[in-house]
């Protein structure tokens, strides 16, 4: 809350211009650009929020046409997210996030040639189980023109451990029409693959990652807002997949993402058009386009958002359908191949007093033919379903 003291008169006022904190406070004044989301607003969340969210992720079985050996069943993951976010004092907030991923299933071990000459997948054999627990804490400071947050996240599973630190800052222009944001993060990861039903060839390896991002959003009118952002991430260390038989990747990976977004509200329809786009490019030869379109429809206490996502990537330089072991780097991982993918989904949320409930269902399918880039089809492209339910509660 700013207090302007009106009435320092004429000439006198000119001689006493001082950059008091009050000026800044008023200038940026909590003008409630996204009033309900503390990511961009400049006041801490008004109330404490606790929430619980459960998602089930399930990949389709591998088609028998593409299977040489092993189980057809691929990954199933149960994800539980629990969080609390609370204001502290008048200028701070604290959030704690806990996430548990419970994974089971098999993944492609390597790609070989079938009797008919077509490539086929040898799966990693019987189902494996793994559990990942991630704990993150964020503190955020709010001042009149912006906010800054600091986050520490630790993730642990049987064969992988990561510790990440992130810092982000957002500040508003004096008329609150434009918000600049910047963030930087670093992560130290350790891979310690476990010998299960497939052999692994390393004991313990490290990956170090650093990432920076810069973005700006601009209010265009009382019903439209646009944003653009550029991010760069660099990793070095053991970047191959230890659970694949033929996988040798460079030990450095630089990647750039240019992203943009647009939101337009239609008061007569009580709904908004949401458009997002990302161009990605890396030094492994991959680049990609991602476009998302959604329509958020408000009803009385209820909202429904159907959405579409299209994604297309170019294969990495060292990818081949069957790994070429004569090269320095090689991989047969479908994730590095050329393909296109489509996601269709529906999200809904309902607000009852201080309770909010949400539900979401989406289907992802990928196909080499849907891509914008040339490249041979990998036999193990993934299709999946994902369903989420969640509930959160706000209290004083």
């Amino acid at each position, binding site marked *: 809350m700013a207090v302007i003291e009106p009435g320092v008169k004429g000439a006198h006022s000119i001689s006493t211009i001082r950059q008091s904190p009050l000026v800044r406070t008023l200038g940026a004044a909590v003008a*409630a650009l996204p009033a309900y989301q503390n990511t961009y607003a400049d006041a801490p969340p008004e109330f404490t929020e606790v929430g619980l969210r459960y998602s089930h992720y399930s990949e389709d079985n591998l088609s028998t046409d593409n299977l040489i050996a092993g189980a057809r069943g691929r990954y199933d993951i149960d994800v539980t997210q629990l969080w609390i976010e609370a204001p502290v004092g008048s200028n701070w907030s604290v959030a704690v996030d806990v996430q548990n991923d419970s994974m089971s299933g098999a993944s492609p071990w390597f790609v070989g040639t079938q009797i008919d000459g077509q490539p086929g997948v040898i799966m990693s054999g019987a189902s494996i189980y793994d559990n990942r627990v991630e704990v993150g804490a964020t503190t955020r400071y709010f001042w009149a023109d912006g906010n800054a947050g600091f986050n520490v996240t630790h993730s642990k599973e049987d064969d992988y451990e990561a510790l990440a630190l992130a810092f982000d800052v957002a500040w508003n222009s004096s008329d609150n029409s434009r918000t600049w944001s910047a963030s930087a993060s670093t992560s130290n990861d350790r891979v310690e693959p476990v010998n299960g039903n497939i052999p692994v060839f390393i004991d313990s390896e490290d990956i170090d990652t650093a990432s920076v991002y810069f973005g700006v959003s601009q209010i265009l009118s009382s019903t439209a807002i646009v944003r653009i952002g550029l991010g760069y991430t660099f990793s070095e260390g053991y970047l191959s997949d230890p659970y694949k038989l033929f996988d040798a990747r460079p030990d450095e990976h630089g990647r750039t993402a240019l992203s943009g977004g647009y939101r337009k509200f239609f008061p007569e329809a009580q709904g908004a058009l949401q458009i997002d786009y990302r161009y990605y490019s890396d030094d492994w030869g991959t680049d990609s386009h991602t476009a998302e379109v959604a329509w958020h429809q408000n009803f009385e206490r209820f909202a429904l958002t159907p959405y579409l996502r299209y994604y297309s990537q170019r294969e990495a330089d060292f990818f081949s359908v069957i790994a070429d072991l004569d090269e320095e780097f090689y991989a047969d991982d479908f994730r590095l191949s050329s393909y296109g993918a489509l996601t269709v989904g529906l999200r809904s949320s309902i607000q009852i007093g201080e309770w909010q409930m949400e539900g979401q269902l989406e289907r992802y399918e990928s196909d080499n033919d849907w891509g914008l880039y040339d490249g041979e089809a990998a036999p193990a492209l993934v299709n999946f379903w994902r369903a989420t339910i969640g509930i959160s509660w706000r209290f004083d």
Partner: protein
Amino acid sequence: MRKLSTYPMKTFVAFLLCALFSVGVQSDPTTKQDAIAAPEFSLPAIANAEGVISLANYKGSVTYLDFWASWCGPCRLSLPALDEIYQELAPMGLKVMAVSVDVVEEDAWDFLARYPVTYPVTIDTEGNVPKAYAVNGMPSGYLIDREGRVRAVHVGFKRGDEDALRAEILQLLEE
């Protein structure tokens, strides 16, 4: 009846702009001779009053004029806090008049059902009054003395702000 007398409007806006860039570090409300008159207006009541309310009705009383909206996050703190101050200081002569700037009146009703207040609330769906007051953030409160002059402006609302606000109002009430 949402007409506004435009005569003091320009002076007021000009004055506010000046104030913005020339704030002195004073902790007391502005002295009487420096303050300028709050622009007069009339708006329809939507809660705790009937018909049309004019700011003129409050002449002679220390009045807190509060602009808010149902979509404003900090208003979920400021309305209950202001109501508490109102209930405490009304016996000493404090008046509060609130102006919702919601475009849809039902949104304001819904908000008041969740965060009820006891002071009179009006609505300006066209934004004329906040414009006249050069409202620069949500919520915005204007502390007006017994002579109808604006003595302090509050923009935004955070936890703990109610203490400073109460102290300021008390000071005007004791004048």
